[in-house]
């Protein structure tokens, strides 16, 4: 099975550490980049792929790769079709 990969966009991270606070398995830590304290992934092996961090992140800086995507059947097809046309 492919391991989950997590990428934090350093330019977008606002250093709130809500991801660290929210994560049930202590995946996130802190690091200093260009004088600013931002979030970093320190323990990716423990990630259970719950996506709580991606949902709480105010700036959309956390991106997941190699995640098994389950289709969401509760979404309205009309809205999905509309959103595909959003820039």
């Amino acid at each position, binding site marked *: 099975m492919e391991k989950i990969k997590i990428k934090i*966009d350093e330019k977008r991270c606002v*250093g*709130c550490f809500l991801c660290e606070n929210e994560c049930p398995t202590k995946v996130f830590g802190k690091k200093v980049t260009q004088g600013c304290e931002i979030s970093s992934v320190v323990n990716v092996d423990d990630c259970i792929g719950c996506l709580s961090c991606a949902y709480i992140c*105010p700036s*959309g800086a956390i991106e997941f790769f190699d995640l098994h995507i389950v289709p969401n059947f509760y979404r309205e097809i009309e809205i999905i079709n509309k959103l595909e046309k*959003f820039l």
Partner: protein
Amino acid sequence: MTHPRYSISTDWLSGCGGCEVAIVDLDIEGKLAKFLNDYDLVRCPVLMDTKEYPKANLGIITGAIRSKHDRESAKAMRESCDKLIAFGTCAAYGGISGAGYVHSKEEILNAVFQGKENIPKGIPEMEQSPKPADEEVKIDLYLPGCPPHPAYIFDALNNLLKEQPSTSRPMPVCSTCRRIMKKTEVSVLKKYLDGTDDGKTCLLSQGYLCLGSLTMDRCKAPCPQRGIPCIGCGGPTLQIILEPNRDLRTELAERMSRLTNMEKEKIVHEIEASAKTHYAYTMSSQMINRKQTFNIKKWIQQ
């Protein structure tokens, strides 16, 4: 070799005209000359006195549908243009005219004209409820923003006419705001005009209801960076639209309660009490008002 020139037709429905100004603002990005070189404006009510709807490759609709005139104009634009952009939050979500969603046509007319007999003759008949452009005509591309930042306008035009891949990503306003979001000991919820902003810390951490983390960034965060809390004029992020259990008030309360010493319920209550302000730009769109979590009429009565 000469490149093909595309014709653009614009129409202004119920909106403020800021979207037309945004096209002129392409100059900020140094792209106005390129715009005029690549595109022919065949109809633009702000600049020229045109009543007809000439054929065009691209139509730009700004503003919401609030009157019978708006509805007919939108249909005429659809017939005369190959492709149509819902330009700005009003066309995409209903925008500020859409805030009339919470009141009936009669209530609004009575509040404005103080009685039926004072309504001037000859004005276009008002629709029962305001609505975004896509409820009347098929839209090929939505570009929210109030108005959209010039950087995104060129991207939209290239994407639709030249079929170039878009470089814009659906990120929240916080992704371009440079304030530092941190845990504070604030325990009082502040109104927009209360206190003085410190210039560096995130407005949420300071206790202001800033909607930046829930609003799609089509503006490059000019307001929060200058100390004005975001009012969500760019429309909600995909998270709010797509997830049935997630709503503007609960998401904001979730983040704010972790950043400050305020309780989640207190924040939710405050947002519900001033829901007309916080949901003003998007409440007439079915993307928001069909959600089970959205119950503005009940909140207003309370």
